[in-house]
Structure formats: C-alpha cells, structure tokens
C-alpha cells in the first residue's frame, strides 16, 4: 500500500494523514464531506479490513453456521429529551436500524453509559426506562453494559454508546456493491421531522408546531420487505446528512449515477415551513426512522405497498432510479423540471443570515 511508504524515519510513525485541519471541528462529525474525508483518509486506511472497507452501516460475517451483523453507534444528542423521544430511544433505535440496514434481524444490544457528575438521578431513570421500553418494542435485549462517570462539566449529562448484534438469513445480501443500473430508489416515508424537532427544542426557536422525531425501529419494515420477496440490493437509513448524503455516499462508493425527483419526496407541511424559515433543505436534514431502499425495478411497486401498509404515516414512494449512464453522483429534478446536482455538505447546514 502506498501509505506505508511515507513512514517518517526519525520518529517511526506515520505522518498525520489529515493535515488540512489541525483540530477536530464539529463538521468532522456532521455527516457531510469533512466526516467522509476523516473516514476515507484517516480511519479507513489506518484500520483497513475487508469488512470495514465495504463502508456499510454494519459488518456482516460468518461465525460457525450463522451469519451475523455487528454495528456500533454513539449518542450525544442535546437536549436529552425532545418532542417524541429522548436519547435513550435514539440509542436503541439507531443501532437497531443500523442492523436492519444490513438486512439483519436485531437480537442483542450492549449499553455503554457515560454520565456526568451531578446528573439528576431522576433524569437517568427516565432515560433507562425509555431504553427498556424501546428495546422491548424493537424486540431486542440489552445483554451487557458499562457505566462510567466523568467530572461535572466534562460531559453533557448523558452520552450513550450501543453496539448491536443481529442474524442475517443466508439468502440475504444487502450491500452498496449490489446496486445495479436500472434499480429503483424507494424512500420509506416523509423527511426531516427528527432534525427539525431537535433544532426547535435545542435552539428554542419558538416555532409553534407539534413536529416530533420520527425515531422508530426499522427492522420490522425491512423484514416485511424481505418476506414479500422484494429484491433488496442495498438499504441506508437517513440519519446525519439526510437523504442527500446517503445517496451521494452510495453513488461515490459504487461509481453509479442516481437520479431523483424532488416532487416525489414527501416532506410534511410544517417541516417544510420550518425549513423555509431557516433556509434549510429537507434532503440534508437528519431522520431517525427513515431509510432508502435500492430495489430491483420489478419489485419497486411491492416495496412501496409494503412500506405503506406497514406504517401509520404515508410518504413511501419511488423517488428515483439508478441510471444506465452518467458520471458518479446524484442529480435531482426540481419541482419546476430542471436538473441540478446533489452534493454532500461540508458539515452541518447552517441557517442563513437573511
């Protein structure tokens, strides 16, 4: 590997691969281009392994006779409680969903709690109850855990890490590398609710709305898709960076060109209103209960039917296709019928000045 040639003989250590930013910025965790660069330039090459190199939401591997999926995620959301959810609910559903995006049936979760000195015990209890209830609803068990406490001021109340293990049926292969030209892009529901709910709660924007997080376990829906024999190529949940970043990532890792149609993407009226006021684009906003499924063109209709029947809220739709030609990337046909490219953002979206 070429990176091995750049060993510094004086110190026998590799030079820092990310010289552009001497300090970690918030954008390095924002789900956009900078985070992507951190993974591609530092974490990926340094820790390279065949499974990690697949750049999937989790790793799928064989152990004995079983195919297992393993994933991990950390949760640092602020505020801890927000409309429709809390950090505990996110910590369970987020990891369950990463397993679901591997085509796995989630089974077991670990729970790592990092608590800040001085956190009200009552707050912790509410979060723990939420973890318990969400895990029960998702059909997973918390089977191991760890608790650490840090000095007051060194944490933000509670940070949570969860890892998850699930089983993958032998017939299931859900990977970016499976995506083919001609496949359909199926979006599971409306976009933007989680991000807007959090922003409204965090920044006290005072938007008079009842927008709640869309956080929900997705494993059941994925299972229904598989049961209906939908030919799933790849699944991706639309968390940080939203739909846009997820699609750009897949386009870049597969070298394929994706075309989506803005008018088919459901965004609730109140979410759109909030986005318009803040100058944000819903396709970049985080969701916690939405995913995009790359499926064969022949099973697109079935996929939409299953997703519509399996959820109380609508919005599931075929929003685009994997095109036969075109450079790697994503284009969006706007509502007025003109094409534009969709790119990853550098970091998080920042509200405009005016």
């Amino acid at each position, binding site marked *: 590997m070429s990176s091995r040639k750049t060993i510094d003989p004086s110190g026998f250590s590799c030079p820092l691969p990310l010289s*552009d*930013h001497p*300090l*970690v*910025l*918030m*954008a390095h965790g924002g789900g956009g*281009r*900078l985070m992507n*660069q951190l993974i591609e330039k530092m974490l990926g090459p340094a820790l390279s392994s065949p499974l990690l190199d697949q750049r999937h939401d989790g790793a799928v591997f064989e152990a004995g006779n079983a195919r297992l999926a393993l994933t991990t995620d950390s949760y640092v959301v602020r505020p801890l409680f927000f409309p429709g959810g809390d950090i505990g609910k996110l910590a369970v559903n987020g990891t369950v969903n990463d397993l679901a995006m591997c085509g796995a049936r989630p089974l077991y979760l670990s729970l790592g709690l990092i608590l800040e000195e001085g956190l009200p015990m009552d707050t912790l209890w509410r979060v723990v109850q939420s973890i318990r209830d969400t895990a029960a609803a998702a059909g997973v068990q918390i089977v191991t855990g760890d608790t650490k406490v840090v000095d007051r001021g060194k944490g933000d109340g509670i940070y949570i890490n969860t890892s998850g293990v699930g089983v993958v049926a032998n017939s299931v292969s859900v990977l970016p590398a499976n995506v083919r030209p001609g496949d359909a892009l199926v979006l599971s529901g409306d976009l933007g609710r989680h991000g807007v709910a959090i922003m409204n709660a965090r*920044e006290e*924007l005072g938007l008079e709305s009842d927008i709640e997080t869309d956080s929900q376990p997705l494993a059941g829906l994925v299972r229904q898709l598989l049961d209906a024999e939908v030919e799933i190529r790849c699944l991706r949940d639309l968390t940080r960076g939203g739909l846009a970043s997820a699609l750009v990532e897949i386009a*870049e890792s597969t070298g394929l*060109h994706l075309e989506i149609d803005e008018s088919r993407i459901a965004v609730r*009226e109140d979410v*759109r*209103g909030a986005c*318009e006021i*803040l*100058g944000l684009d819903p396709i970049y906003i985080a969701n916690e209960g939405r995913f995009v499924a790359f499926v064969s063109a022949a099973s697109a209709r079935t996929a939409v039917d299953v997703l519509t029947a399996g959820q109380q809220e609508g919005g599931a739709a075929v929003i685009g296709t994997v095109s036969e030609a*075109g*450079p*790697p*990337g994503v*284009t969006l046909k*706007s*509502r*007025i*019928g*003109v*094409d*534009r*490219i969709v*790119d990853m*953002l*550098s970091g998080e979206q*920042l*509200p*405009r*000045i*005016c």
Partner: protein
Amino acid sequence: MKYLDEYRDPQAVRGYSRALHGITTRPWTMMEVCGGQTHAIVKFGIDQLLPPQLTLVHGPGCPVCVTPLELIEKAILIASRPEVIFCSFGDMLRVPGQKRDLLSVKASGGDVRMVYSPLDALRIARENPSRQVVFFAVGFETTAPANAMAVHQASRQGLRNFSVLVSHVLVPPAIEAILSAPHNRVQGFLAAGHVCTVMGYTEYEPIAKRYQVPIVVTGFEPLDILQGVYLCVKQLEEGRAEVENPYSRSVSRAGNEPAQDLIRRVFVVVRRKWRGVGEIPSSGLGLAEEYSGFDAEHRFEVDAREVDEPSECISGLILQGVKKPNECEAFGVLCTPEHPLGATMVSSEGACAAYYRYRRMQVHDRRSGPRIREVPP
C-alpha cells in the same frame, strides 16, 4: 404550502419562460443583487429557462461575502479572548480569515456560539454578567433593524457586557458603484425584495433615472424571479428605465418605516470597505455617537491592519458581476467549500458556493447553462 407552492408552479414557470422568449429580441445583461436570489436561480435552474440572449450576472448582495477580511480577523481576535462569548449567525463562522475561521477558534477553546437572532445574544449577555458578549452584526438593510433593536435594548437595559462588531452595508451605493465602474456591463437590476421590504424603493428611483437602468423589486421564488426578469427585459426592450415593484405582497414604496426609524436612531451612514470590491463612500452603517459605547472595535481595541486577499481569488470580480464563478481558474480545483479561498465559496448565498453545489457536473441540459469545469469527486 400556501404562499409558496403557487410561486413554484411548473406550469406558470413554463408560461413565464415562453413569454420571455416571446419579448426578447436582443442580448441583455441583468444583475440580481441579492445572494439569496443567486442561490434560487442556480438551485432551481432558472437561468436554464431564459432565452439565450439574456445573461444574469450575480451581484454583491451576500453579506458574508462582502465582509472585509480585516473585520473577520478582528472577529477572530475578539472571539479568542477568554472573557468573550462571541455570537454570530451561522454563515459567518466558516468564512476564512487569513489563517483560520471562527469555527477553528471554537475548536481551540474559544466560546463561539451560533445564534438565530441578535436578541438571543442579548439574552446570553443577561445570563452571563461576568462575561463579555459580542455579536457580529453583519448584513444589509435586512438585518439592520433587528441588530439596531439589540443595541437599543442593551442601552435601555444598561447592559455593560454587550457589544457589537458592526459590518453593515447598504445596497443602493453598491448599485451606483457597479454602474459607474468603467467595465460595467449591467443594463438592468433585480433589486433585493427583502432589503426593499425594510427600506421601500424610493432610494432606487433617482438611480434608475440617473443611470437610465430599469430596476425591478424582485422576490425569491422561481416565479418571482422570472417575473422580475420579464419586467426588466420588457423595460429594456421598450427603452424605459423605471423602478417597478411586482413583489408587492411584501414590499411597499415607503417600506417599513418604524424599522427605518430604528436604523436611523442607532446607526449612521459611514464609509465601508467591501471585500473584493474596495471602499465605497457612504455605503455602510456604523453605530451612532449615542450608542458608540457598544462598539466592540473600541471596547477591545484590536489591531485593524490591512490584510491581503489570496491572489488566486477573483471574488471581487464575481461580486461586481464582471466574472462568473466557473471563469475562475481556482474554482473547484484550489477552491472548494472545504478549502475556500474567498467568502463567495463559503456563504450559502455566495455565487461560487451555489455553482459548486448545484452545477459542478452538468449532466443534462447544457443548452444555455454556463460551461462548468468538471471536477473529479
């Protein structure tokens, strides 16, 4: 969505596009003043719907883009002080100074906070009496009333730990500077609807007359912009040079007079340097004598040395409408949103950022769109 979807209706958009093709007989060059309009034009692909004879050039109306480098350096120096909580609109945080931006100051331990309103900064000042809270008051006439209100309230409440770093600029002097430049090619203007909502449009009437240019007060939705272009072309074709206001759902001729009163009370008109353009007389706002105690530049006495722009950056020519982003050698190669050479690549309203985000590789419809260098991902 009411009051929004009507202005993005594909049928109506196509109707206006056809009408424009019908009335355009000659080449015309127009400038949309406001960066918000630039972004809407590029995002919705409105320029691709125009007759090929029409050229839209992008104006200086991006407050982030025209804030001079010296002031960003000052902001960085002030924000680095341990006693300071530095509050700013989100857009300003990523603008590069000479070596770093405000987000890097935050990463180095500075207390830099993104706020949505200057009144939030005021609240932070009340809640942190032992700290100095500084608000970066940037923008055009649009943000001036709220910023004026924050200073006015701070004064009334006797808040001693609040100050503002002012970089306010005004649209009409910038339009005059563009029109009187020897290399000017702009024949008509789409005036910024938000600015006119505050200021009205009487200021533009003498400009239209003196320079014989049509000025059309224009909104931000696709239909608003097409309507603005249509009326501007119609005037040009008919040899008229007037101020027209099709954006009457938001703008009146006199504007928002209480807001103007507040601006006049707190601010005075001053010379301002515009990044990439240079100094323009009477083109900005500074704090009036009565409120000068709230001026962060005095309170912190930071060194105001001149700072050179990166030589590769042509943002000045772009902000004056002389060049388009894709005509820059550095565009997409040396200069990207991750490594911006100039502010026009940073701000969500900057022309270079708009081109980079929406036009980097044009896959379809190369008909009338500008030629864009293809950049490997």
